[in-house]
């Protein structure tokens, strides 16, 4: 076992406010591999890369920089479980390095509250922590054979493709698929894997987001014969879970099979693969038909 390591955990808005099972699963998984998750005192929303950044880039950057600076003061890499948070924090870190004008603006705002801009903040997506820091082989080694009957449709999510160079864009989604494989679950192929879940469109046009994006994606997943969807982002998770309910209730769209398809975060899948009981991570708190997953556990 590697020496004990600590990470500054950036939970974001969704997980702590809506998905306690994701936080519980993440803590349990990291602990299993000898990693200590540390909470970050006084962090705010990342803030989101759609609404806030479009409203005013200066505030978006200053808030993101503040979050990065608190984690940097803890002398730990910041880890996020959300693709949206990752996008914002990644972009903010780059903007601070490259855009002198915005950096100066943020510096001035920081001075007004007695803070200093982060100098070289470390940032990782949980997918990188699982695949690189813990390692695919280590996950494979500790995984039980409980997920051998589970067929999974992976949905990496758009912002997981965020990278500095074009050739690196596929790296994290590839890691994501490798993690799924390491848990013992079977990843099924479906046509619209790269297709957006539609979450960002919700803030502008809900009907379009659900009917034109989510429903098409769900149809493709259903045809693949998957038992569940695995995501790397709580916002995608919300879109899959609540979107299915809304499609049925608000728009009378009856999806194939009628019962819907459950969605879980990658840390929950890893937790189940490690033999952690569903009730220990509160898996039933999900709004989808989570029993479809539980019944397949060996």
């Amino acid at each position, binding site marked *: 076992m590697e020496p004990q390591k600590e990470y500054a955990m950036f939970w974001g808005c969704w997980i702590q406010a809506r998905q306690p099972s994701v936080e519980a699963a993440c803590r349990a998984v990291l602990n299993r591999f000898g990693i200590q998750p540390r909470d970050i005192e006084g962090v705010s929303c990342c803030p989101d890369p759609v609404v806030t950044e479009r*409203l005013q880039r200066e505030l978006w950057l200053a808030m993101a920089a503040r979050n990065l600076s608190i984690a940097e003061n803890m002398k730990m890499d910041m880890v996020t479980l959300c693709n949206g948070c990752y996008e914002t924090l990644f972009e903010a870190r780059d903007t601070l390095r490259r855009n002198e004008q915005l950096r100066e*603006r943020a510096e001035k705002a920081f001075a007004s509250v007695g803070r200093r801009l982060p100098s070289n903040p470390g940032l990782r997506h949980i997918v990188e922590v699982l695949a690189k820091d813990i390692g695919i082989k280590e996950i494979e080694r500790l995984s039980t054979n409980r997920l051998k009957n589970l067929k999974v449709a992976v949905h990496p999510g758009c912002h997981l493709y965020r990278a500095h160079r074009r050739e690196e864009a596929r790296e994290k989604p590839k890691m994501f698929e490798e993690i799924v494989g390491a848990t013992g679950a079977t990843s099924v192929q479906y046509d619209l894997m790269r297709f957006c879940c539609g979450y960002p469109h919700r803030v502008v046009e809900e009907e379009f987001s659900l009917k034109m994006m989510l429903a098409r994606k769900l149809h493709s997943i259903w045809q693949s014969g998957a038992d569940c969807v695995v995501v790397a982002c709580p916002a995608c998770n919300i879109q899959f879970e609540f979107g299915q309910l809304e499609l049925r209730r608000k728009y009378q769209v009856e999806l194939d099979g009628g019962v819907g398809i459950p969605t879980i975060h990658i840390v929950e899948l890893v937790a189940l693969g490690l033999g952690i009981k569903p009730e220990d991570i509160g898996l039933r708190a999900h709004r989808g038909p989570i029993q479809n997953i539980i019944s397949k556990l060996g």
Partner: protein
Amino acid sequence: MTTTSTSKNADQETVIAEALRRELKENLVNESRMSPDRPVFEVRKDALTQALKVLVDGFDARLCTITALDNGVDFELIYHMAVKALVLNIKVIVPKEDSEVASVTGIIPGAISAEREIWDLFQIKFQGITDSRAYIAPYEWREVKAPLRKPMSGVVGSYQKPTVERMMQAGQVFPIPSTIMKQRDELKLPPIVSTTTRPEAVEELHKIAHEVGFDKKIGYDTGKNKLRY
């Protein structure tokens, strides 16, 4: 314009700017330019008369006109003042909730036509105006209709308002329901230490938002902790 007159204007502007800074102090909130030869001095609403008095008494300034602009949450009133060949602007922001500003007819009697016209078109009341009758609009419109006044609205769309407001109120965009708190307790998750439970961190965010002008841009009332529209 010749080089000599440009240079004279620049000298004149320097003297005027110094006088405004000296007399208005913190009531002069911003200095900018509408164009290379058009300085703009933004003053607090309460200091409008004082600013114009400095120009009229000290520099024999004339009022060319007053322009009004409805920005959604505020009005911008711009007093175009000429001092010989130099034209400069005195700008005041009038919150829509008040829609009131002091009349300058006491020091510039000729301002009355512009003030009455703006009252007609935007429903901005000019306190102390010497003649408050409707000017270009029908009399019966005075309290009920103003053709150029927009509804109270800002840059945040209606679908974004709950998210943005919540982010300003708590630093996070979603409230935590009691059911989730119960589930967190059952799972023995540690207490939340984000801005949701740290009011001092939210206060810090408000200072940052103010420093970068976000609160002003979106029309957020920090005192009432909500959007103004």
